[in-house]
């Protein structure tokens, strides 16, 4: 095991030393002899597929699981703080009140609350991260990055000793690029102050930008523990997947023949969308890009009828579609994959089989209107095989699958009836790289078979990889449509923010509008 201590001087013992952890479950070995050192001032990234053992490792660190073998040692006087993906904040309370939840404990529970002191303290904590926001606003009104900062501040508030280790578990999952930068700045400050940071993430580019050292887990084993400087994106993908990264498919350059649009909308309004004209043709993959709040995230839900909308004209397959609603959309061959998989993607309490067949059960009914269990099982088993869902257990509860496999199940469901129109919202958010590739393949297959596909995504690389053309949204309207040689990452970002050229960095905490980190542009190759 390498002992990459970033700072010079006599080697100091690590703040956190994880050695030889083994953890097995009835059906699998989740962690097999995994070791990890974290030194003061160091940011260590832990990456890997869903199911590689990342979350098990975090659960062992947090004490939720007990390891079968191996030890977790902390340097005496070191505090270990874990921030989980859901942040454990109370949305209705303000930042100051959330911070107070931890400190107001024990004997003083009924002591009067000193609001002013508390707020001063909250402001002080928040300011350490160079991020100004309203500490009196309910936390749910803050941006995701600001919420993450509140959660980190709360952990910090409990810091007593001089040395600390902070574990961030998939904390950037829900963040937009610009917000990730805000959070990273906060994390760097902590490391600079001497904390050790363990950063668990799916998002590879982020990891390389932030970490000093990268630890890669695959199938429960540690396959790499190297300085981040020596690893590039391709190599990281290789380490994670265990094979050379599949060469990126040549993007279909041929424009789709001028077929009749299968979906056409004029003057679509609803949610954050103020006005949108759009036409989707069979075989075409159209992207929707834009910053959070631009209307990008609302487009698929509006077209599907998940959210109320109005339009001057809306036609699906040549027929007017006055009031879109999910059941009617399905009947017209429109399928939708929501972005919020945990809440909207499927019914966690039902098993995979029941979720896959829920939208269309009539094809399975027989005598007395009953569902033929045999036919249903056979069909779902086949779909799970085709979509490479693991484990391939139709009778497993949906909530028990990993994120990537949940999304494969949702995709399998949406593609089951060969929809004419496929609407996708963040189809690979929070999904590991292996599942991502599988989902891209499915999307491309669907298009090749004649479906018109719409992909709304905050991931520029995803849109570049998949789409024939991309509509960039800004302030609820289409700001540009990029295709062919115009379809590049810099153009996507520039159109999204309404920038022609990089200008001075201007990061206010306000989520609204295009006051934007132009350094994103500078980072582009």
């Amino acid at each position, binding site marked *: 095991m390498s002992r990459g201590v970033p700072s010079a001087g006599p080697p100091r013992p690590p703040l956190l030393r994880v050695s030889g952890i083994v953890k097995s479950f009835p059906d699998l070995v989740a962690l097999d002899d995994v070791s990890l050192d974290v030194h003061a001032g160091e940011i260590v990234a832990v990456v890997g597929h869903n199911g590689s053992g990342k979350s098990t490792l975090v659960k062992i660190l947090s004490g939720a699981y007990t390891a079968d073998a191996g030890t977790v040692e902390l340097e005496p006087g070191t505090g270990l703080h874990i921030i989980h993906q859901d942040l454990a904040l109370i949305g209705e309370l303000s930042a100051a009140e959330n911070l107070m939840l931890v400190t107001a404990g024990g004997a003083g529970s009924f002591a009067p609350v000193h609001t002013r002191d508390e707020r001063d303290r909250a402001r002080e904590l928040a300011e350490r991260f160079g991020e100004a926001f309203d500490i009196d606003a309910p936390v749910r009104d803050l941006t995701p990055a600001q919420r993450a900062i509140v959660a980190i501040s709360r952990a910090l508030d409990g810091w007593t000793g001089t040395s600390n280790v902070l574990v961030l578990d998939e904390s950037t999952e829900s963040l937009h690029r610009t917000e990730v930068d805000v959070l990273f700045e906060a994390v760097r400050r902590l490391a600079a102050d001497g904390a050790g940071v363990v950063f668990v993430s799916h998002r590879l580019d982020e990891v390389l930008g932030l970490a000093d050292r990268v630890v890669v887990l695959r199938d429960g084993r540690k396959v790499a523990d190297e300085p981040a400087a020596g690893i590039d994106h391709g190599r990281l993908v290789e380490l994670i997947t265990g094979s050379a990264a599949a060469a990126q498919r040549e993007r279909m350059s041929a424009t789709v023949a001028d077929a009749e649009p299968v979906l056409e909308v004029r003057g679509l309004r609803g949610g954050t969308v103020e006005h949108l004209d759009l036409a989707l043709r069979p075989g075409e993959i159209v992207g929707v890009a834009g910053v959070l709040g631009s209307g990008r995230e609302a487009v698929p839900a509006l077209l599907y009828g998940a959210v109320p909308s109005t339009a001057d004209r809306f036609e699906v397959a040549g027929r007017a579609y006055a009031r879109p609603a999910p059941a009617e959309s399905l009947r017209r061959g429109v399928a939708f994959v929501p972005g919020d998989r945990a809440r*909207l993607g499927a*019914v966690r*309490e039902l098993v995979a089989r029941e979720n896959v067949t829920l939208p269309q059960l009539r094809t399975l009914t027989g005598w007395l209107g009953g569902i033929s269990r045999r036919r249903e099982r056979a069909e779902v088993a086949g779909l799970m095989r085709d979509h490479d869902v693991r484990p391939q257990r139709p009778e497993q509860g949906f909530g028990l699958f990993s994120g990537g496999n949940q999304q494969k199940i949702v995709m399998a469901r949406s593609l089951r009836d060969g929809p004419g129109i496929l609407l996708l919202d963040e189809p690979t958010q929070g999904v590991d790289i292996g599942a991502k590739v599988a989902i891209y393949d499915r999307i491309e297959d669907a298009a090749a078979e004649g479906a018109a596909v719409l992909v709304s995504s905050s991931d520029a690389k995803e849109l570049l990889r998949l789409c024939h053309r991309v509509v960039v949204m800004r302030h609820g309207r289409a700001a540009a449509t990029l295709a062919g040689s115009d379809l590049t990452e810099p153009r996507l970002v520039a159109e999204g923010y309404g920038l022609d050229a990089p200008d001075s960095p201007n990061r206010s905490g306000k989520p609204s509008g295009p006051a934007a980190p132009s350094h994103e542009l500078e980072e582009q190759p």
Partner: protein
Amino acid sequence: MSTTRDDVLRALSFRNISAIYIFVVMFVIFSLWIPQKFLQVGVWRSLLDAEALTGLAALAALIPLIAGSLNLAIGAQVGFAAIVSAWLLGKAGLPILVQLPAVVLSGALIGLVTGLVITRLRVEPIIATLGISSILLAGMAWVSGSQQILGLGDEYKLIATTQFGGVTIPVYVLLAVALLSWYVLERTPVGRRAYAAGYNPEAARLAGVHVERLRIWTLVAGGAIAALAGALLTSRINAGDPTVGPSFLLPALTAVFLGSTQFRGGRFNVWGTIVAMYVLAVGIKGLQLAGSPRWVNDLFYGVALVLAVALSQWEVTSRRASAIGRLVDRVLPRKR
């Protein structure tokens, strides 16, 4: 690990069939305590007959609950139907062939109104049904003048007391309603969608389920079944009694929640409900035969309801069934 062994283990685990274990324990205790009273065929037969109505009330609560509506008006619905059926028969003088469908229809109508209050007026089911319950209680008092309605004739009484093969008609009615409910809930698209709507209405809606329509229909079905129970209740006691109906609420809900912990790993289900209902009834009967005062009923159901819900929240964190595991190992050796 062999799947058969796993399946048998899971099937026999306390978590899966706790009601059966509870039944065995109670049976042993009462058999040793009061053998001469408890171990009588007549006792068991009357238990089967009397509790069939509780079973119907439990199914009436179960169906809407699967689709997400906790119905606190079940007792009042049974009671109201009991009074209405006595009034239609005794005061309005309708023939049974008209009176019975009318009662069931009125129950369905109450379900419809409840459903509309929940979906159209957007009142939480608990609050909506609490309100409906109070309104129905008022209606019962008004129609009956808070008196028993008597003089229903001899024919009507036969419905609930005629025996076939040693058990009365209500037991067969319960069996028929349970079979039908089971088939619809577990084997048809409607049932599948009802479960989805109950667990996650928003995700179900996006999967094309008409959540509100389903909720209304489950309440209509529940209302009709509750009314059937009410009509049979009046037949059984041969009078319209305004005080009996409301006492069905607690046993019915307790059976539904305890039933959800049986057989289907936490899902509300028909057979779990029926088994749980009878197991609870055996407990009550045993306590009554042992000479306990009437208030023990309320105590028993209150404790059972809380325990049943606590049990349904109980997560298996480790292999707790190891004792049974060893036993099963002897019967079904592991394939290695």
